[in-house]
């Protein structure tokens, strides 16, 4: 009985985590665009890529291994790792970024004064700075998601695990059933490589997968304790 209560208490006090199965990922960019649509991310013009200032809360990194004919291209979807020991948090002079009790690394836009210390201290380059006032052509503004703030020039932004969806799903107070709450990227992912859930719920898929034998965390040796677990790609040497 006591254990049951404990388990349900853990479920009710969620810790949001994600698992990325690199064995499934095909690098198709569906998550990237889904995120852009959901989170009112400004359109990345050509110049943004030239200056390496494109804003993508989730991006697909591609790493080469070898050269033709023995060549491999590996894909790594990289988003804010929501580190439990986040390097970005202590360096913010105005406390614009902090860790909340759901395991989220929160960015408060109002507080942000744009020192960019946090971005510099993030080993994953997951934090992105608004170098320009985001502009949309007038008609395209109709698509903007009213649940998400449109950020202004001079503030840092990053993946929020679609906190607007979390807020919506948890508003009623009941525990969220596993699989019903998904950030835009996981919802779109055609191969279901992205799995999101409450790791305090021992029955959640994310809890099961994060201890899969293939698991690793990106740059774990830095001690960031990320909330995103990757599943190792298995390579078959024929």
């Amino acid at each position, binding site marked *: 009985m006591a254990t049951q209560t404990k388990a349900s208490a853990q479920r009710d006090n969620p810790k949001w985590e994600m698992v990325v199965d690199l064995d499934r990922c095909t690098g*198709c960019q569906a998550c990237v665009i889904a995120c852009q649509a959901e989170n009112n991310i400004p359109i990345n013009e050509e110049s943004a890529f030239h200056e*390496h200032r494109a804003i993508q809360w989730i991006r697909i990194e591609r790493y080469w291994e*070898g050269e033709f004919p023995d*060549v491999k*291209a590996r894909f790594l979807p990289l988003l804010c790792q929501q580190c439990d020991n986040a390097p970005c948090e202590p360096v913010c002079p105005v406390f614009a970024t902090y860790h909340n009790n759901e395991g989220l690394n929160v960015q408060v836009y109002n507080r942000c004064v744009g020192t960019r210390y946090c971005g510099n201290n993030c080993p994953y380059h997951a934090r992105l700075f608004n170098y320009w006032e985001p502009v949309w052509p007038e*008609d395209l503004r109709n698509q*903007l998601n009213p649940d998400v703030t449109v950020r202004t020039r001079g503030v840092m932004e990053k993946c929020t695990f679609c906190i607007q969806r979390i807020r919506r799903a948890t508003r009623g107070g009941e525990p969220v059933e596993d699989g019903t709450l998904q950030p835009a990227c996981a919802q779109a992912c055609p191969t279901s490589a992205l799995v999101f859930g409450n790791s305090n719920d021992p029955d959640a898929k994310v809890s099961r997968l994060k201890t899969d034998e293939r698991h690793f965390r990106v740059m774990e040796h830095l001690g960031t304790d990320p909330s995103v677990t990757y599943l190792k*790609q298995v390579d078959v040497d024929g």
Partner: protein
Amino acid sequence: MGLTRRRFLQWAGATGIGAVVFNGCRVPDHEIQVQSPVQIPEDLVTGRDNYYATVVQGPGSSEGLLVRVMEGRAKKVEGNPDYPMNTGKHGLRAEALLQAAYHPDRIKTPLRRVAKGGPFRPIGWPEAIAELTRVLTEADPSRVVLATAPIRGVLADVTRRFADSYGARLVGFDPLDLTVLRAAIKRVFGQDALPDFDIARTGYLLSFGSDFLGTWLDPTHFARGYGEFRQGDRERGYLVQVDSRFSPTAAAADEWVYVTPGSEGLLAMAMIHTIVSDGLGDDAAASALTGGRGASALSAFAPSAVAERVFGETGGGAERIRKMARDFASADHAQALAIGGGSAGAYANGLFNLTAIYALNHLVGAVDPPNGGGLVFNPPSEEPRITAAPLREWKQLISDMRAGAIDVLLVRDANIDYGLPGSLGTREALGNVGTIVSFSSFLDETTALADLILPGNTPLEEWGTDIPDPGPGYRTVAFQQPAINRFNDTLSFGDALLETGRELGFGDQLPWATMRDAVRDTARALHESGRGSVTQPTFEEFWKRALERGGWWDMNATASAASAPPQLPTAAASPDLAGDEDQYPFFLVPYEAHGIGAGGFAHLPWVQSAPDPITTVTWATWLDVNPTTARELNLHQDDVVIVGAPNGRFIHVTVYVNPATPPRVVSIPFGGGHEHFTGVAAKRGANVLDILADTEDAETGALAWAGTRVRLTKTRTRVRLPKLEGDELAVQLPGEEVIEVQHVRR
């Protein structure tokens, strides 16, 4: 009076603060108004989100969508979890439909050219329909052509009925049409509809040239299966990609096998030879494929005879072919499956290649196997569909146009001025067409030449149905409904045809007032059948439920069995590349761009800004060159080269040094180089279709788009490619890998 310091400060203070008060306190105009619900249906309660199920079709794809709508505006596209093709998932192009609906450069009203070559003048819809009616009444129907992008479902029915009633010639257009694939499926399996591939339950997947995880047919649908193929309940599947280019599918594959462009069929035939001579496959199928003669009928394809032609300088002799054949036919794994398409079918011997590739399935029992995996056939569609006509037909049509034999050309999203090979001289031929009427939503190159534009709706604003092709293996009808009211003064293509049809007196053939009525008639027939996923006592209830679920499907309505294996040819067909090897040393293997496809999505900012998975390039057209080749030619990243084809045509493209590109191959993605097609697409990149030789597949007449050799000439210009990756090539550092890979021996 001199200005003292003190006075200056007083003024500056007053004016400075004043500026703050009277500027800083003013709220921007667009924020003062409560978000204005433009053209919002009045039954919608504002400020609350609604989800509408709809569907969007592509030439080989069908994605069921749920559109989140708030205050009459679409906010987000999500996959429809009920729809059997994509089951809740969606690709990047579907998401970007939002930007098509709200694109600032949409054609907002009907337009009419004041005089030939003059500017456009906005007109109202009554005038537009009247003008179209006048043009069609005055023209000789035999000299009228209706060209459209491929369509399925009710709209195809309406379009065909309109064309038939009037007597116009109806032609489908898609730059990369599926003619060869359809012909191969017909020849090898006797099926009219494209089959589905049960990738999830396949154990060994051999794919020839088909980038099924990137752009080929329905990537979202295939990716669903691929996820399970990799990490489902079963043993991890093994994927071999045979391709002359390193595609995203090749990147995902366990093994990428480079073959000389055009020799995919040769490799498949050599594998068949091995399987037949070693008795590894199904005996009855082996006998049928060889006409009862066994391996001796295929002696021309003995691995030792073809290995060099297949693998070229990369080595890997006959033994490699034999090993591939043995692996494929081995019983150690679950079901094996061979699929092919894309560049493998885009040579003069395209049909030969695809026939050989799909014939492999007969030998390993992959034709509708009882335990899943392999090919799943679809029931033939009862509803008409308009497929793209092969190049051969278009060549004839263009020459008719040039000769002045076409008086009226009606086009709907068939951008022939952009999409046909440049050597055909389409622009000049279109100049000899009396009147061009366009129904496109955007000012693409062909629409820019039009005399009258009746702008159509975007997919999220339209009524329609879709019968997916390929389907999920059983009869499926998806319903497309407007998730948002039309945002500009546009009219759906179907409604424009129905209205014009009424004016012309085709009421008998086109008995519907609107497209909605036509869709309801389709639904009524499904309701009366009393079968399938939605059954309701009354039609109105059925209609409501079917629209809510996004469609209707009947899992018991499956296809007829495949026909007996055909006899295979005894001699190889040549890929017949344009240009000789000395003057044009490189194979040009172009490919459908990951986002913008063959150019049809180039107007959408999200799609343009989505990095190519392999090169991470955005917003541009690039040339993939092997690093060694680049060194030999003294080419560097971002150098602009002239890519010249044997027909004398050339384009300027920027070099991307790609470690995975084979030494004698160069690749350019389709889709760039638009002249018009909104400010997003115009004057960006280069159009590789412009330089392609007009080579046809010998049997079907489809464009052999990979059948051109080219030469490269370095220029002094450099243009930096906009891309996600840094200026240094991103590689995994040994011992410090970002991605920790576990190697297992097979």
